[in-house]
């Protein structure tokens, strides 16, 4: 069977000593940074990206994937122990997880999160492996018009499912697209918007944008809200859930996994949406919850944690097979691939099978490491939460700055990152979510390229996007999404869903 052969190839790549070591390092460092409150997976990935530049592409991606779920899991640990979500997708974990911690069941909550995540990660990886081939075959039917429409759908999907104002999110995407266009235009060779700065001829560094807008802006924002951290360090309690907790948790894990796997593939989906949806579903399906949700019900930890990990896994599907990142984290992965001269898209699987399947296999290994690593090491993460922020952030800044510099051995990139830090802080103050910006930034050049090609092929006739059936379908889906969300009753539910936890 093809799938078995492919997975065998994947495991033979992922199980080399070096790649195991990189996966391990990724998971470890990812958790380490992810545990720090206020630093989510996007910021963590942006900060650690430069570390992987010197590696060969397969190892680099394996390590980055490890960093991603490490960061995600680290965020849950913080959510449970400190009631501070390290990242948006563990916001819901805070609600019941922290209450469990207050009642001395932190250990059970952490173990449930870890085991649920592992189970969900395993399922997610299998789905990814199974869907990869058919998706790639579909992708080869795509022409430039279809790609353009797909990106429109992806971008619209990303904002529809994100929280906050719809128009502002679309504006952030467009701004991202425009920033992505800075630099030499591939078709004409003209350097655009570079203002005669030679460093801008290759465009704005993608790490500068990500690290500035997410990393630096978050650090500044964290310094504003100083202080009230309450760590439940001394009573993590027994790790194993008791019988009742276990019986409550496993159906929730199954539901969370199923929901997360589906939502992860959707544009704009992924971990955040999956966690929110899973929590809402648990509240709906559970009759007479004991204890009630919001007061430490283990389902409120098990379901969102499984869902966000399943979603994290399956959101790799559109990225790996179509080259279209469904969310900001995947946009960072695309950026990382491009830096290693791999153009993400359906051809990766055929031209670089060991990278493709190796990455998939390493995801499962990474998830396994996460369990093995986190349960015994919880004590260390707890200690880390005790380090005062005033000592942590200068250290984080040091690693960020050295990282940015090392990409091109260029101080200009460091200054650029500072500028985007200021812009990111402005976004934060104006409540403009930065995630759509990074998605647009990555897609900008791709979108322009496909638009140009499609228009060239149609001799300047813009109706090509509506006359090709596949392209039309994609655009209609995008339009339907906007209409649905704009409907008054839906938009109210959407607001509620996102504000329930505030």
């Amino acid at each position, binding site marked *: 069977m093809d799938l078995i052969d492919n997975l065998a190839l994947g495991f033979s790549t992922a199980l080399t000593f070096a790649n195991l070591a990189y996966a391990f390092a990724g998971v470890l460092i990812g958790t380490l940074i992810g545990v720090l409150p206020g630093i989510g997976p996007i910021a963590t990935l942006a900060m650690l990206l430069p570390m992987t530049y010197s590696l060969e592409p397969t190892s680099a991606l394996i390590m980055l994937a490890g960093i991603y779920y490490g960061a995600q899991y680290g965020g849950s640990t913080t959510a449970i122990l400190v009631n501070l979500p390290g990242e948006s997708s563990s916001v819901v974990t805070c609600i019941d997880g922290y209450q469990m911690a207050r009642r001395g069941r932190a250990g059970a909550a952490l173990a449930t999160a870890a085991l649920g995540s592992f189970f969900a990660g395993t399922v997610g990886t299998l789905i990814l492996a199974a869907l990869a081939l058919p998706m790639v075959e579909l992708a080869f039917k795509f022409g430039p018009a279809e790609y353009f429409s797909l990106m429109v759908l992806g971008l619209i999907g990303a904002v529809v499912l994100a929280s906050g104002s719809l128009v502002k999110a679309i504006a952030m995407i467009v701004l991202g697209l425009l920033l992505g266009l800075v630099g030499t235009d591939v078709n004409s060779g003209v350097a655009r918007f570079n203002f005669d700065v030679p460093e801008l001829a290759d465009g704005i560094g993608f790490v500068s944008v990500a690290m500035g807008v997410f990393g630096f802006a978050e650090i500044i924002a964290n310094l504003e809200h100083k202080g009230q951290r309450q760590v439940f360090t001394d009573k993590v309690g027994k790790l194993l859930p008791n019988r009742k907790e276990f019986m409550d948790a496993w159906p929730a894990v199954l539901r969370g996994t199923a929901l997360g796997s589906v939502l992860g593939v959707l544009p704009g989906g992924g971990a955040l949406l999956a966690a929110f949806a899973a929590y809402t579903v648990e509240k709906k399906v559970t009759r007479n919850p004991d204890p009630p949700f919001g007061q430490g019900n283990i389902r409120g930890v098990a379901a969102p944690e499984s869902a966000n990990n399943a979603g994290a896994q399956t959101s790799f599907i559109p990225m790996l097979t179509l080259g279209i990142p469904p969310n900001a984290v995947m946009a960072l992965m695309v950026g990382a691939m491009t830096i290693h001269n791999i153009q993400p898209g359906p051809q990766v699987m055929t031209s670089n099978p060991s990278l493709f399947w190796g990455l998939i296999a390493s995801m499962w290994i990474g998830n396994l490491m996460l369990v093995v690593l986190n349960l015994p090491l919880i004590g260390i993460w707890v200690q880390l939460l005790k380090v005062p922020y005033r000592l942590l952030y200068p250290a984080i800044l040091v690693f960020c700055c050295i990282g940015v510099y090392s990409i091109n051995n260029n101080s200009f990139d460091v200054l650029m990152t500072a500028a985007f830090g200021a812009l990111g*802080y402005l976004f934060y103050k104006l409540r403009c979510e930065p995630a759509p910006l990074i998605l647009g930034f990555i897609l900008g050049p791709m979108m322009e390229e496909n638009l140009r090609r499609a228009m060239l092929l149609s001799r300047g006739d813009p109706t090509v996007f509506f006359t090709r059936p596949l392209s039309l379908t994609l655009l209609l889906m995008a339009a339907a999404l906007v209409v649905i969300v704009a409907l008054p009753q839906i938009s109210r539910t959407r607001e509620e869903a996102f504000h329930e936890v505030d």
Partner: protein
Amino acid sequence: MQIRDAKDFWSGVMFAGFGVFFVVFARQYDMGTAARMGPAFFPTMLGGLLLLLGAVVAIRGLTAQTKDGRVDRFHFKPLAFVLGAVVAFGLLLRPGGLLVSLAALVMISSFGSDEFRLRDVLLLTVFLAVLVMIVFIYGLGMTVPVLPVFLRD
């Protein structure tokens, strides 16, 4: 007219500003035709769209019914010290070498916190300098000047 939701209003102004910026600066490049788009085509399109979206957001900021429309206070202290430290690092790295610029980064950025303690900051600087030397210089073999210009051979 009164600004109801200042966050939205100023977001709109910001977006519109960026839109105008890109449209104006795209004018120096070739528009091309729809079939053969020049370098100015896509940016002009997007810039126009951004201007439009910005206008919508700003107008909604003027008319929206909201209780919580005020823009939170800007905390210029952490902003200035954190980003100032990063800029100092960038400017000092080539002439001053890694150790000098790292010390500047750690010390300047530490002023951004309300709980500045000199002893801790000095210890942290030394600790990070040693760590960075081990990890980046000896471990990863990064090529960056370590010492200031006048101390190099």
